[in-house]
């Protein structure tokens, strides 16, 4: 039997979901449950599409592992893993509330409308070592980042 587990955490202004599964797993998500704005692949690869749509989006830890998936809001979707996979979703709590997301690639200036999430690895930010799934509300100040090959995202309320 193939393994496929879903995880969820509601944070202060957003929520994070995660799906961990074996290769060749197919999973459906109903439109009413779809609040994901970004997908972050931290292991393996897979693809997602609106149900019955051939226009799919591939996520791959060795390629595109951070994707804007806003075009799937309001649609039933299907996900298929190509190999053992772990994917996070950054979700809005309210479909009227849009967010801008990006991966951190070095030091940056923060703002108080943003949250930082460490999806994988142990970056050092302002002298503090983070671990997987640490998150922080940012302030209007400089953030000194030593990425150490970690996957870190910053998400800003629009």
């Amino acid at each position, binding site marked *: 039997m193939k393994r496929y587990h879903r995880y969820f955490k509601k944070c202060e202004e957003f929520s994070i979901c995660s799906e961990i599964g074996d290769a060749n797993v197919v999973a459906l998500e109903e439109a009413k449950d779809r609040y994901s704005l970004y997908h972050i692949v931290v292991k393996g690869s897979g693809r997602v599409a609106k149900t019955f749509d051939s226009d799919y989006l591939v996520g791959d830890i060795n390629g595109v592992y951070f994707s804007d998936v806003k075009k799937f809001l309001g649609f039933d979707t299907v996900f298929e893993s190509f190999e053992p996979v772990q994917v996070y979703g950054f979700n809005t709590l309210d479909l009227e509330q849009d967010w801008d997301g990006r991966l951190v690639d070095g030091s940056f200036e923060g703002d108080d409308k943003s949250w930082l999430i460490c999806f994988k690895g142990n970056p050092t930010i302002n002298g503090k070592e983070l671990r997987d*799934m*640490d*998150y922080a*509300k*940012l302030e209007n100040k400089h953030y000194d980042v030593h990425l150490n090959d970690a996957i870190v995202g910053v998400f800003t309320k629009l």
Partner: protein
Amino acid sequence: MKVIIKILDYLSERDAVVFRTCRLNSHKPIDEYPEKVVDCFDLNKNDTEDFIQSLVHKISAHLIEEQDENEGILEENTPIKPTGELDFEKIVGKVFQVRHTTRRINHLKMRRIEL
């Protein structure tokens, strides 16, 4: 969700049925719900059970959801969204709205830090 459906008429010239539907546990009689017409050309006419089942699949569940939405919310049932740190003193007496899902979802461990 348990569904009931009442067939009011069969329109043979159109191959359609007139019906009413609602939740089994509705506190309103089924006759107080609006009449609807549905074409039967794509329904399963093998026997009564298959027909009713296919009718429910085609239209009833969606219709009941719509009816529920249109019925409005009692003032005392008006919910708020659950947000912020858990403080039992602050949540007692309040009505919260949640998105119900039948999927099994595990808790994702995350740690809030200050940077």
